[in-house]
């Protein structure tokens, strides 16, 4: 693929299997600088596996992942990452501010000394995600949306060009989900950060996404939202007929006639109609 744009992430025919069971098959897509991309798929579609492969935590069976190394620091590829679920106990003596600071130098050995510069960077990052108000509270006492903001600040404080988030909107109420989504979009635009965000519900992201990577059956379709979320493209991906239904501002992806071999993750809805995210 010849690309003119400034490519930050290229996933090239990546396949991943777990004990012989293929989870990702020849997944290919690339993201340019500052692009905001949704990684869409049902539970078990392989979203987490794909993100972990990009991070290098999971070795692919075949294919390769290239990440722009221009912003590497300390020999680490500067990828920001917000994992799927972190349970932070409310008794842990760590403030939101401390979590953000650990994003800066948590990998360093030895004691940390709170310099003016370090404090300034942390304060700036807390402000960027709108977390100043609760910066001095125990991180375990914060709400889900507040914790997401803190984790986003933790991930971004070293100024990575690529930010991966695993289901950051799950477990949030609709309003917090919308706030977090637009915060990410704003950060992406302001700092030209490439964002790849997984979700099983694409609707909160519809007005914000530049691109989607849609995972089904281990395969991926990627491109501009309107080029991917289409009846013909998704039908090919799933291997059976899919309807893309637009109701008001929402998109529903449904299988009109659920075939026998329909993946377990697809719920039947209702009777013969299976809804897919």
């Amino acid at each position, binding site marked *: 693929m010849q690309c003119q744009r400034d490519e930050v992430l290229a996933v090239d025919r990546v396949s991943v299997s777990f004990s012989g069971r293929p989870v990702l098959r020849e997944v290919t897509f690339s993201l340019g600088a500052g692009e905001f991309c949704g990684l869409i798929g049902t539970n078990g579609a392989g979203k987490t596996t794909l993100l972990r492969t990009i991070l290098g*935590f999971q070795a692919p069976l075949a294919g390769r992942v290239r990440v722009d190394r221009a912003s590497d620091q300390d020999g680490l590829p500067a990828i920001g990452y917000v994992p799927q679920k*972190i349970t932070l*106990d409310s008794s842990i003596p*760590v403030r939101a501010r401390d979590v953000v600071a650990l994003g800066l130098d948590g*990998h360093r050995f030895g004691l*940390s000394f709170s310099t003016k510069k370090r404090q300034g960077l942390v304060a700036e990052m807390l402000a960027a995600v709108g977390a100043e108000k609760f910066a*001095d*509270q125990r991180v375990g006492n914060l709400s889900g949306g507040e914790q997401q903001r803190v*984790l986003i600040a933790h991930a971004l404080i070293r100024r990575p060009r690529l930010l991966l988030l695993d289901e950051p909107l799950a477990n949030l109420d609709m309003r917090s989900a919308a706030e977090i989504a637009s915060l990410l979009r704003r950060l992406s635009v302001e700092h030209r950060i490439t964002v790849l965000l997984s979700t099983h519900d694409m609707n909160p992201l519809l007005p914000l996404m530049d691109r989607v990577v849609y995972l089904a059956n281990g395969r991926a379709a990627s491109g501009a939202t309107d080029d991917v979320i289409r009846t013909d493209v998704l039908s090919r991906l799933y291997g059976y007929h899919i309807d893309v239904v637009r109701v008001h501002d929402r998109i529903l992806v449904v299988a009109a006639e659920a075939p026998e071999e329909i993946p377990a993750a697809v719920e039947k809805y209702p009777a013969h109609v299976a809804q897919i995210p």
Partner: protein
Amino acid sequence: MRSLLSLIFEPGFFTSAPVHTAMIVGGGAAVVSGVVGVFTVIRGQSFAGHALADVSSAGGSASFLLGINPLLGFLGMAVIAAGGMELAGARLARERDLVTGIMLGAGLGLAALFLYFDVTTSSTTGAAITVMFGSMFSIPASIIPLALAVGVAALAVSGLLYRPLLLASLSPELAAVQGIHVRMIGLLHLLVLAFAVALAAMTVGAILSSALLIGPAAIAIRLTKRPGLAIAASVLAGLVATWGGIILAYDSFYWTPGHGWPVSFFIVSLIFVLYLAATAVRGHAGTEAAV
């Protein structure tokens, strides 16, 4: 003032050699346990700490049979147990608890055997009490250099690991993204935990050592929400309890003439009282501590 001091410190306190040894070894144990305990509580490894202590009692009781430095005995078994737990490599909490429980049982079984030989084949009839519940005033001064070396090593490693360990304790995944070798950090912390437990076992006995490890840390995290301050507060609470316990135990020789009360009892009681006080303070200040 002078009379108040003399009320607290009974005659001879400052000149007694056993008291000196107890203050040094106990103080070292309190500092190391205070630091390591905070990480242990954050990581949810209190049970592992307790199990290491129980297994270390096998080493402590063997040392009486072999006639070696008891700290070496405690330390040896604690380190072996730490290695065993790591090798078992259980990743799920439930599985880890099972492995820990099995090791704890095996360790106490060995301790039972060695203690039986101790009390039946030699003249060390007090071994069981000493190993399990500590007898600080009979700690030989000769162990001070080793105790200090173990303590300094544990503190040095803890200081070195401070940030990666804190991050890995919050989330192994976040740590891994920063290139931190999460498993290595975990193993090193387990080793430092073994060091702390061995020192504490030497002081308050194997059974009570987890009280010195977990108690001050639990007090500290109620009082402060900053990791660095929590460690400082935990060390302070440990020192207050340990030195306070030594003073009270020394004084108790004068309360019940002829025999004093065990130091361990006072240390653990002081920890308990401090814990209740910290809980009350926290309750008073609302759910969120101010500092």
